[in-house]
C-alpha cells in the first residue's frame, strides 16, 4: 500500500496502515456505484435501444442497424448537418473574437479591466439557456427594443433563423473562449519575445515560430470546446426557434416528447448515439490538448 509518508509509531502505525488500505478504497465505491447506475445504465440502455428493434407483432427483440441508418437520412441527417454547421461557424467566430478580446485585455495595463473582463466572462459564459434566449427576444425579436429602434426588420433581420441563432450562441461562446485563452496568453512570457527580438526576429517571425506554436494547443482546444458547447446546446434553441432551424437536439426532443410514430423513440436513441460519437471525438481532441497546453501555464 503506497502510503507516501512513513508512520513513525512502530506496530501501531503498521496496523493502521494495513487497515487504511481497504478503507480508503471503499471511499471511492459510492461514486463508482452511483455513476454506474445513474450514468452507465442510461447510456447502456441508449446504446442497446439504438441498435435493437422490437417486432410489434411478436414482441421479439432483435439487433438492427435500421434506426442508425434512418438517423443518417433525410431530415435527421439534415438536422445533424445543421447542428455541425452552426457549431462550426459559431466556434470559428467565437474563437477569433475571444482571442482578440483576450489579447486586448492581456496587453492592457489596466488591472481593473482584466478583473472586470474575467468576472464578466465567467458570468456570461454561464448565461446560457432559457434566460439568454429571452434577453435576445427582448433585444432583437419581432418587437424587440433594437429591432424597433434600428428598424432591423427592413434590413432582413430575423432572430428566429440560423443567423439569429448564431448571434445568440456567440453571446456565451465568446466569453468562454476568453476564459480559456487568457491563461494561455499570460503564458507567453515577455522574456521570450524579448529574446526573439534580441536575436533579430521580426514580430511576424516571433508569432510564427514561438507565439503560435505555444498557443496552438490552447487555440485548438478552445475551438473544440466551443464547438462542443454549441453542438450540445438545446435550451436556447428550444426557447428561441422551436423547430424552424434544423438542429439535432431539437429533433431528439421532438421525437422524445411528441406523440409521433411508433419506433420514433429508437430513432431518437440513434440520433443521441450519433451525438455521443461526435461529442466523444470533440473531447478526445480537447482533453489531451488541454493537458498539453497546461505545460506552458503555471
Amino acid at each position, binding site marked *: 500500500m503506497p502510503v507516501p509518508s512513513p508512520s513513525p509509531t512502530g506496530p501501531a502505525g503498521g496496523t493502521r496502515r494495513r487497515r487504511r488500505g481497504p478503507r480508503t478504497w471503499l471511499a*471511492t465505491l459510492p461514486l463508482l456505484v452511483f455513476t454506474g447506475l445513474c450514468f452507465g445504465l442510461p447510456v447502456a440502455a441508449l446504446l442497446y435501444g439504438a441498435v435493437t428493434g422490437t417486432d410489434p407483432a411478436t414482441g421479439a427483440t432483435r439487433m438492427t442497424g435500421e434506426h442508425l441508418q434512418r438517423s443518417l437520412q433525410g431530415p435527421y441527417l439534415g438536422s445533424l448537418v445543421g447542428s455541425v454547421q452552426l457549431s462550426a461557424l459559431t466556434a470559428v467566430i467565437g474563437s477569433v*473574437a475571444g482571442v482578440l478580446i483576450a489579447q486586448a485585455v492581456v496587453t492592457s495595463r489596466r488591472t481593473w479591466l482584466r478583473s472586470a473582463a474575467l468576472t464578466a466572462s465567467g458570468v456570461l459564459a454561464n448565461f446560457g439557456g432559457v434566460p439568454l434566449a429571452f*434577453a435576445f427576444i*427582448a433585444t432583437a425579436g419581432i418587437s*424587440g427594443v433594437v429591432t424597433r429602434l434600428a428598424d432591423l426588420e427592413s434590413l432582413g433581420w430575423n432572430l428566429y433563423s440560423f443567423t439569429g441563432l448564431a448571434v445568440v450562441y456567440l453571446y456565451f461562446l465568446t466569453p468562454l473562449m476568453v476564459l480559456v485563452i487568457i491563461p494561455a496568453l499570460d503564458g507567453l512570457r515577455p522574456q521570450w*519575445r524579448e529574446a526573439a527580438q534580441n536575436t533579430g526576429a521580426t514580430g511576424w517571425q516571433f508569432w510564427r515560430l514561438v507565439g503560435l506554436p505555444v498557443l496552438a494547443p490552447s487555440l485548438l482546444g478552445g475551438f473544440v470546446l466551443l464547438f462542443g458547447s454549441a453542438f450540445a446546446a438545446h435550451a436556447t434553441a428550444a426557447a428561441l426557434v422551436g423547430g424552424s432551424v434544423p438542429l439535432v*437536439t431539437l429533433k431528439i426532443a421532438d421525437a422524445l416528447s411528441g406523440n409521433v410514430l411508433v419506433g420514433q423513440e429508437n430513432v431518437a436513441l440513434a440520433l443521441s448515439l450519433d451525438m455521443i460519437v461526435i461529442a466523444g471525438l470533440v473531447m478526445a481532441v480537447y482533453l489531451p490538448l488541454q493537458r498539453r497546453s497546461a505545460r506552458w501555464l503555471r
Partner: protein
Amino acid sequence: MAALTTTAQAPPAETRPAPEKAGVRRRRRRPRVWRGLVLGLAGLYFLVPLLASVVFTVHTPGRGVSFEAYTGILGAEGFTDSLLLSLGLAAATIALVLLLAVPALVAVRLGAPRLRPVVEVVCMLPLVVPPIALVTGITTVLRWGPEHLSRTPLYRTFMAVQDENFPLVLVLAYTVLALPFVYRSLDAGLRAIDVPTLVEAARNCGASWAYVILRVILPNLRTALAGAAFLTLALVLGEFTIAALLGYQPFAVWIVTVSGAQARMSVAVSVLSLLITWALLLLLSRAGNGTRPAKSAATLAAAPSSNKDQ
C-alpha cells in the same frame, strides 16, 4: 524592458530591438487603437442585450414606463413553486455530489492512488454525453419500470424516484451532469494542499478520522467546495432540457411556460436570474481567503461547457 513587455502585440514593421523612448511611444499608439476598437465592439455586443432587456421590461411603447413586470413576478402563478422546487433540487444535488466526490477524491490521494485514473475518467465521462442524449437514456430506463418490473419491489423504487413533488430522478441526473465540474474544482483544490502530510500530522497529534476530515481537510478545501457548489447551483437553476423532457416544471421550464402569455415578465425573470448569478459569483470570489476574484472567476468556467445551455 518593462515598456517592451507591454507591447506584445506591436505590428511587425515597428518592432525593432532598440528600446528608445520615441520608438516605444510610437509602438504603443497603434495597439491602443485596435484595443479600443475590439473592447468597444465587445462591450457593445455584450451590453446591448442586457440594456435592451431592461428597457423591454419597464417600457411599453405608447404606455410609458412601468415596473409591473417585476412587481408581478412574486404573485405569478407557479413562480414560487417552481423556484422552490429548483432550489430544493439544487440543495439535494449539491449535497449528493459532494458526498460522493469528496470522499472518493480524498481517498485516491491517501491510499488508493491506483484508482485515481479510474475516478478521473468516471467523473469526466459525462462530458462526452450531451444532456439531451442522457435524457433519452433515462427515459428508456424509466420505461422499464412499468414494462418489465411491475411485479417486483424495484417498481416502487421507480415510482418513488419520479415523485411529482420532488423528482429524485432529476437530482440523480443533475449529479451526473455536475460531476465533471465538481471533479475539476475539487481536484484543483486538493492539488494545492498536501493531503497525506496533513493527515499524518493530524493523526500523529491524536486526531480522530472524523476530526481530520471535518477540521483539517474540508477547511483547506473551502474555496474548491464553494466553487463546486456554485457551479452545481447555477447548473441546476438553469437546467431546462432534462426537466422539460421528463415533464417536470422547475424554474427554467416555468419561464418558458409563462413566456407565451407574459413575455415581459419572462424577460424580467431572465434579467433577475443574470443578476443573481452575478451576485453569487462575487460572493464566491470572496468565499475563499486570499483568492483573487479574477482567478476564481476563471476557474468557474474553465471547465468545458459549464454553461447552462445544455
